[in-house]
């Protein structure tokens, strides 16, 4: 009797989650395969050198997306807020560093030596700090008072903050793209027929250093542990004597540091910036965070890389007018079919 009941139960739940789930999965795989097939034909058409070239660009783009995505995912992990202003903090990083570069004595086409590297490092540090101060202030002014309000309230505030920052940068730099000083040396190496510039290498190395540093920090440091504890259960963390306000502020601080670094590297690579840069880049980075499973730091890093690959390959092999559509379609599909992210890691549901 009980066995029969259990069998019925199991069949019911199998039917429900299994069948529809599997049908959706199959649809998804078919779509991905179709895309890969199409991509494959284009890749063969354009030859291996082009493929490698696109791949190197994609890695650099992906690294920048990953840096922004980390901020989204950390903030979401800890207070379950989509910090819409985060993309604009990234854009602010680009603008601020554009102004700082001449201030720190760097100029286009100069000779490079150990001292110039130090100068550039100083630009990095100051920009990252400025972004951090900005992001922490945003949290303090706009989000903290609403921490116990219904979820809609901080989300709307975040959108408002994003508009405010974009407005401020619009006021500062005007509606059109501004030139970003092209200070990195114009050196490049040829690897297997593809060109790799100093720009790409700078992006790769900086990103690896920052992500490894972040991982160590989250894993080892007291504050990192406090962050993980707070993300899991804020009340319990508080009972354990963790200063919640400080921990959340630290999360915003670190997220902004990474986004600021991303902003500088975006500027250094593309030598252009525009006031609403943060909106589009932010959305892609947010997609990356969702893709990797929002709240999951490693997921965000991997998601950033994957989105960088998808976007750059699409731009390289298909009509770039559609690349945003593709990105957003991916965003929607991931949320619908894999709300916990493509890595399938469990996110604490609350």
């Amino acid at each position, binding site marked *: *009797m*009980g066995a029969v*009941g*259990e069998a*019925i*139960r*199991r069949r*019911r*739940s199998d039917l*429900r989650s299994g069948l529809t789930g599997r049908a959706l999965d199959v649809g998804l795989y078919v779509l991905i395969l179709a895309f890969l097939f199409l991509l494959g034909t284009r890749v063969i058409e354009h030859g291996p050198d082009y493929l490698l070239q696109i791949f190197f660009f994609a890695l650099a783009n992906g690294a920048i997306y990953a840096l922004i995505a980390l901020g989204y995912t950390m903030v979401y992990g800890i207070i379950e807020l989509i910090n819409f202003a985060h993309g604009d903090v990234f854009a602010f990083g680009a603008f601020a560093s554009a102004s700082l570069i001449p201030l720190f004595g760097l100029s286009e086409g100069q000779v490079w030596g150990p001292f110039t590297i130090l100068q550039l490092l100083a630009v990095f540090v100051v920009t990252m700090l400025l972004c951090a101060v900005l992001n922490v202030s945003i949290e303090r002014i706009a989000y903290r008072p609403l921490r116990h309000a219904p979820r809609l309230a901080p989300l709307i505030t975040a959108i408002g903050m994003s508009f405010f920052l974009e407005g401020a940068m619009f006021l500062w730099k005007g509606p059109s793209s501004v030139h970003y000083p092209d200070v990195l040396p114009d050196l490049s190496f040829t690897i297997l027929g593809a060109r790799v510039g100093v720009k790409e290498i700078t992006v790769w190395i900086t990103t690896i250093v920052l992500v490894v540093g972040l991982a160590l920090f989250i894993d080892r440091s007291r504050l990192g542990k406090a962050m993980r504890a707070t993300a899991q259960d804020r009340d319990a963390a508080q009972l354990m004597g963790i200063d919640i306000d400080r921990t959340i502020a630290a999360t915003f601080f670190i997220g902004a540091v990474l986004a600021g670094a991303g902003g500088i590297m975006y500027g250094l690579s593309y030598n252009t910036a525009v006031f609403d840069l943060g909106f589009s880049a932010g959305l892609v980075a947010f997609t990356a965070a969702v893709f990797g499973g929002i709240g999951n730091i490693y997921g965000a890093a991997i998601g950033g890389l994957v989105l960088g690959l998808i976007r750059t390959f699409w731009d390289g092999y298909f009509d770039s007018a559609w690349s945003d559509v593709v990105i957003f379609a991916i965003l929607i599909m991931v949320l619908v079919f894999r709300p916990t992210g493509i890595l399938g890691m469990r996110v604490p549901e609350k």
Partner: protein
Amino acid sequence: MQTASGPASDAAILRLDHVTKRFGGLVAVNDVTFDVRKGEVFALIGPNGAGKTTLFNGVTGLIPPTSGSVVFEGREIAGTKPFKVAELGIARTFQNIRLFEYMSAVENILVGEHCRMHAKLWDSLFKLPRERREEKEVTDHAMELLRFVGIERWAHSYARNLPYGGQRRLEIARALATRPRLLLLDEPAAGFTPQEKVELMRLVGKILDSGVTVFLIEHDMKVVMGISKRIVVLDHGEMIAHGTPEEVRRNPRVIEAYLGKQH
């Protein structure tokens, strides 16, 4: 209350069969089997964390059981969506009162009427006569329910502004508005004064008289022993006893696991 009150029959209205609920590695309810008979007050007792509310959540579909079957009036309902369970005729209250705080008492009850109403989108959009008629009917019925539980004087107050006892009663009235044949009460007497407890027992009696079977979780032994016909005792997710209040009271395992700790 729509159901005519008849003689209590021995037919099971709800049957749980080898119900188990796991949360990850933790077994909250382990292989529980019992049935609730039509027209009785059935109590589920046990120390904190015994899995009582989990069982309620399993029956009402909020958190479906991991395995086992739940049969209501001969129909398998394990894994059925909560709203469907309510439509089938099981209503519940919550341990930590979950009223719609910023709706008035009447409106709270009207939400309970929702699944018994027939107004379609068009009826509501254009306020067709049958919609108006239905609105009037359910509003009258809601007022009747408020009187039934004795809080009609707060009909138009926000639910959050009702006194504590009033809120518990309102939750019962809201559950009754779904016209259930089985009512699940999750610690209805929690935080009540002795006087209020007596009134609650009287209310449960009235509900029973109107033809609704009552299945309750309660900590207060006086209440449980006073009104329930049969009792199931849960401890750490295991069913350790089953029977009439006298049988349960004498059961050594219960005394050890539950009563022993309490007294």
